[in-house]
């Protein structure tokens, strides 16, 4: 990690904040129309304790949903990748499920498991984020060239060995590509539930209370905090990808 790799993105963020501030100032917008970065600092100063606890709520539920999505998505992808019949059977269902806007599912889930806020939030984060993982794993497995299989099969290797030694590592680049999409989706899922569900917790609930109290700088501060968490999680995935699938990066 060179200094350049850290400085360039930081500088880009700084320029973005300056432009935002300048825009709000030039247009003369009051902060109920559009808060500026300088309005956010007092918001963070006033509510920093809330931001920490709520941010933690949002983070752990998002990660829990993601972990479930990885487990379930990988399993589903394996089933669809290895069996043509299962692929034919499950694809339309899966695509249909994914096409349903999750915002419409949120109230249903909230009623279904009323009062179980943690469970509901994790469930929505999971539901919204497993699809890309399942699809990428299934495509990765089903497009494995037969020669790869034959090399090991001709030596008498079992299906499990072939999966562990070849199919699994070969699918990792696609898997991580999908995981990067899923991270962002999981955040959307968590926040949908936090905003909609009454007496919710997490950054979504904080956003909602900002709305109720017409505290516009707070609402913007929540958005920035969410963006920050999203960036952190994304780079965690990037670090994992470097560790486990760094071979796929040809340095281009």
């Amino acid at each position, binding site marked *: 990690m060179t200094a350049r790799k850290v400085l360039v993105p930081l500088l880009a963020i700084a320029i973005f904040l300056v432009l935002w501030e300048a825009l709000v100032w030039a247009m003369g917008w009051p902060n109920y129309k559009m808060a500026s970065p300088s309005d956010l600092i007092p918001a963070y100063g006033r509510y920093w304790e809330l931001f920490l606890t709520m941010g933690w709520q949002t983070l752990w539920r998002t990660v829990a949903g993601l972990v479930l999505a990885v487990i379930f998505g990988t399993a589903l992808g394996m089933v669809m990748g290895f069996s043509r019949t299962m692929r034919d059977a499950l694809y339309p269902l899966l695509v249909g499920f994914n096409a349903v806007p999750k915002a419409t599912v949120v109230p249903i889930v909230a009623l279904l498991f009323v009062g179980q806020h943690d469970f509901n939030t994790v469930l929505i984060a999971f539901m919204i984020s497993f699809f890309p993982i399942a699809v990428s794993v299934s495509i990765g497995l089903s497009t494995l060239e037969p*020669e790869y299989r*034959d090399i090991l099969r*001709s*030596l*008498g290797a079992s299906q499990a060995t072939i999966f562990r*030694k070849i199919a699994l*590592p070969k699918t990792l680049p696609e898997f991580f590509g999908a995981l990067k999409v899923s991270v962002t989706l999981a955040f959307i899922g968590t926040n949908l539930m936090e905003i909609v569900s009454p007496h919710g917790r997490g950054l979504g609930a904080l956003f909602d209370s900002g709305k109720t109290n017409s505290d516009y700088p707070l609402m913007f501060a929540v958005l920035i905090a969410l963006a920050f968490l999203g960036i952190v999680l994304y780079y965690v995935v990037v670090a994992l990808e470097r560790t486990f*699938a760094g*071979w796929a990066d040809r340095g281009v």
Partner: protein
Amino acid sequence: MTDGPLIDIRGVRHAYRTAGGPLPVLDGLDVAVADGGFTAVVGPSGCGKSTLTRLVAGLLIPDAGEVRVHGQPVTGPRSNVGMAFQNPVLLEWRTILDNVLLPLEIVRTGMTKAEGTDRARALLALVGLEGFEDKRPSELSGGMRQRASLCRALIHRPEVLILDEPFGALDAFTREDLWQIMHRVKEREPFTGVLITHDLRESIFLADRVVVLSGRPARTQYVLDVPDTGPRDLDHLYTPEAAEMLAVLRRQIEIAQGRAPAEEHAAAAAPEPVPGPPAPGRQGAVTGAVP
């Protein structure tokens, strides 16, 4: 060691089950490879040559007929087989050395880890890949990857080496390099080999016997014994003897493609050449293949 051929394929028939009904690919295939022999199999594209490799590897059990290795019927994969394909199928996440070592993780050879590594390094040196052990496949050229794939096929000292068009995707000069390397390998690492190819020059340069398959469904149409065997240089491809062999094979391929009528042809001891399926309108369109 038995007296009979090490690989013995007799009267093999096989059909793939497809949506449009059974698709016969092999119909009366006979191939015998002596212990230490190297047989090339040529034939029109799509005639079932690759199916033959899967039979020998035990990856496919034929509908009828017999496939024996060492006199034992082949009933499933056996670890004494090494395979290399046109696509080198190296594992991108492993170094070249670890790729070569892959079969040793599956097959019990009695080699210790250190012995295996030494052997892998020696094989890589033999094919001219010394110094590339720790590189990734993506850092190597096509010809180098193919050489690494060959080392992987040989690491566990297989009795039978199956080469399915391994040089097919390489440029002409790289291919000729690899032919020379094959001779060097065969001298140092004796194996019984089956080489699928559609390069006739490659077949007579590397193999001691060339089997011509008919068009699909494939049967053994012609067998040519190559008189000179063992290491030789490329000049051997430009002798009158080589030209004559190539002409004979060329003509057999045309028969197999249905582009030439079968007729008696002065050649080495061989089964009766039989006509391939006639292609309407193309009969008699024989072009002179003799230089």
